[in-house]
């Protein structure tokens, strides 16, 4: 990469060196050329040749490995993901860095702020990746991301006391989302039975008492004006007992909100007592439906699958930005401190607002620094590997995969297909060339 400027330097000096010392120059250059040839040129050449051979290297296959790259679903996913990374990340990292850099100049604790944003960069990518795997864990008790989401959803939609419960007598209980109702309507004087299973014992309140074996509506007044029922945990330890019937020791579920409906219109609402019993009285004789309110059965927010196939690339990109915002901040911050303040001050005097100053004055003056960040980030994003392999569980790596990961997996991840691996390496190399050229040209300009 640096051979360009070097050559220029030598050219400039040549007149001062005697002609017969070209030999000396060659001798001095030899070690560098040798190292370059052995460690850079030869591997590239060998990889190009190797990419034209089969997995084992025995057969010449021409461009077949390249054809596979653009036809196999897996490598196509890798190409697509690399495209997403390159389109999103350099711009995002630069924007975040720019905002942080401008902000850190305005706040009095700017230095502390810069240090804070910079810290992730000194952590190894692997360690940061492992940390993010926990951040994105599906279980909100483990994963920070889902814990944050849950703390919001719990307020908007508080989970029920008996979340996750299933009716034990499905033929008598109709399920509609998280509400349960009697499958057939009841006439006054009848009793509704709502047996439930799959309630972790910790969710059943201490106050729960044994559910009543037998309910006689007559006990509560005129049977013709009464509909009663019981909501209970239909589980006997060891799996004994009769499903759908209240057995000895089975507990009632207290505080379930119960509605009684008459042709879809709620007539009355009550809650179950300690033994899971509920009674509606003073009803007109007729047909009724009992509905258990979903508030008692709502399942808590289960967590977004950050590490699932749909969100994984977004989650990876977010973690990359978190790590590299510090790099952008430092480069852009340095550029910012080199700007002539007079431009900004005079713009302000002329009445430009902060946004106008940023877009019209700061960003154009920072063009150099912004380019450095964009180009460097593009190169590092094209060859992204560590975060993907560490954060993405094996089960979604086919969805999260990128070229560098595919290259490694094809060669060393079990398939041992060095032909395909080499071809992927060459594709990656070609993709990086434009960014490299930009970088080299920039070096020259700085000279």
């Amino acid at each position, binding site marked *: 990469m640096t051979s360009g400027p070097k050559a220029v330097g030598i050219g400039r000096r040549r007149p001062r060196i005697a002609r017969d010392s070209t030999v000396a120059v060659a001798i001095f250059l030899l070690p560098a050329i040798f190292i370059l040839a052995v460690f850079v040129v030869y591997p590239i050449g060998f990889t190009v040749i190797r990419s034209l051979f089969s*997995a084992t290297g025995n057969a010449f296959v021409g461009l077949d490995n390249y054809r596979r790259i653009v036809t196999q679903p*897996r490598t196509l996913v890798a190409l697509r993901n690399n495209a997403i990374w390159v389109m999103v990340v350099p711009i995002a990292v630069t924007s975040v860095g720019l905002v942080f850099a401008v902000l850190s100049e305005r706040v009095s604790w700017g230095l502390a702020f810069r240090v804070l944003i910079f810290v992730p960069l000194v952590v190894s990518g692997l360690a940061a990746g492992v940390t993010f795997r926990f951040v994105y*864990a*599906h*279980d909100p008790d483990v994963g920070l991301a889902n814990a944050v989401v849950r703390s919001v959803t719990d307020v908007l939609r508080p989970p029920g006391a008996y979340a*996750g419960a*299933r009716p*034990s007598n499905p033929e008598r209980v109709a399920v509609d989302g998280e509400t349960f109702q009697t499958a057939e309507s009841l006439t006054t004087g009848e009793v509704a039975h709502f047996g439930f*299973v*799959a*309630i*972790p*014992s*910790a*969710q059943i309140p201490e106050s729960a008492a044994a559910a009543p074996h037998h309910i006689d509506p007559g006990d509560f007044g005129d049977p013709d004006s009464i509909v009663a029922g019981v909501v209970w945990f*239909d*589980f006997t*330890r*060891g*799996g004994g007992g009769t499903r759908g019937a209240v057995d000895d020791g089975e507990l009632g579920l207290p505080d379930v909100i119960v509605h009684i409906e008459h042709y879809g219109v709620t007539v009355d609402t009550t809650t179950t007592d300690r033994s899971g019993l509920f009674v509606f009285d003073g009803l007109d004789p007729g047909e009724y439906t009992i509905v258990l309110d979903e508030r008692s059965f709502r399942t808590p927010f*289960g*967590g977004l*699958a950050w*590490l*699932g*196939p749909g969100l994984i690339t977004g989650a990876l990109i977010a973690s990359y930005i978190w790590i590299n915002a510090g790099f952008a901040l430092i480069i852009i911050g340095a550029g910012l401190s080199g700007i002539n303040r007079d431009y900004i001050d005079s713009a302000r005097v002329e009445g430009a607002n902060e946004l106008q100053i940023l877009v019209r004055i700061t960003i154009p003056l920072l063009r150099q620094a912004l380019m450095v960040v964009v180009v460097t980030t593009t190169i590092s994003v094209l060859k992204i590997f560590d975060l993907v392999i560490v954060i993405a*569980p*094996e*089960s*979604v*790596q*086919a969805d999260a*995969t990128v070229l560098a990961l595919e290259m490694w*997996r094809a060669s060393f*991840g*079990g*398939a*041992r*297909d060095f032909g395909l691996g080499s071809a992927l390496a060459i594709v990656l190399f070609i993709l990086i060339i434009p960014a490299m050229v930009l970088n080299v040209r920039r070096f020259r300009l700085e000279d």
Partner: protein
Amino acid sequence: MRNAEVISDYGIPPFSIGGASAWTLTDWFENIYLHSAGPELYDQLTNHEIPWTHPSVREAMSLFVNILERREWLAGGVAGTLEATHPDGIVKPFMSPPQAAMAYGADFSVGAILDQTDAVVGETARFFDFPTIRGSAPSVVGGGDVAVAFTDNDETRQFIRYLASPEAAEVWAPLGGYTSPNQQVDPSVYPNEVSRGSARALQTADVFRFDMSDLQPSAFGSTAGQGLFGLLQELVRNPQNMDAILERLESEATEAHGRR
């Protein structure tokens, strides 16, 4: 299955599967297949003499699907299963409060349980053999390490022979995580009930078969995200697509075996 139903009714997911480590899934399938289809078909499938769409494979896979399609039976649900590695999955039954009731593991899994949880092997952690299916013979699927000698001389041979002997096993076994294939090894040398149980299962089994996925071309049997590994994870995600998945297994197996 009936036990799983009871456990689930009680409010605990019966199964914990560390599905991010795909070999746990292939082991599940291999055990089901060896028990339901028997060793002859197991060998034929291993050598890809019968296709992955064979009725016996379909039947074994359906048995697995019976578990997978009951989302509430899986600790952590589908997402939790697919992001848990084997060590994550194996410890779930032993956490406080327990997050699952049963986990399938190998002899070396005991280490993770002892290291990461307060479980006492034999008291709060118990071992049972993979259940028989319709009265199948006691069968074991195992993986193993192979000692390879790079130098062919008397000393090397004697050393290899020693490694295979009961005496060597009695030195190694008490350290845990190791089961000797030598039938003369006294089960009492194993350090805990789980290791002893797996040793006993290995010694008394009528049928022993080597891990099928380990015997496949690696592109099909042991590469993350493709072949058996990728497609069994796909099965966890979409058990209703079993038929399509079996067909893709067959086509990937054909390609991988052909390339060998």
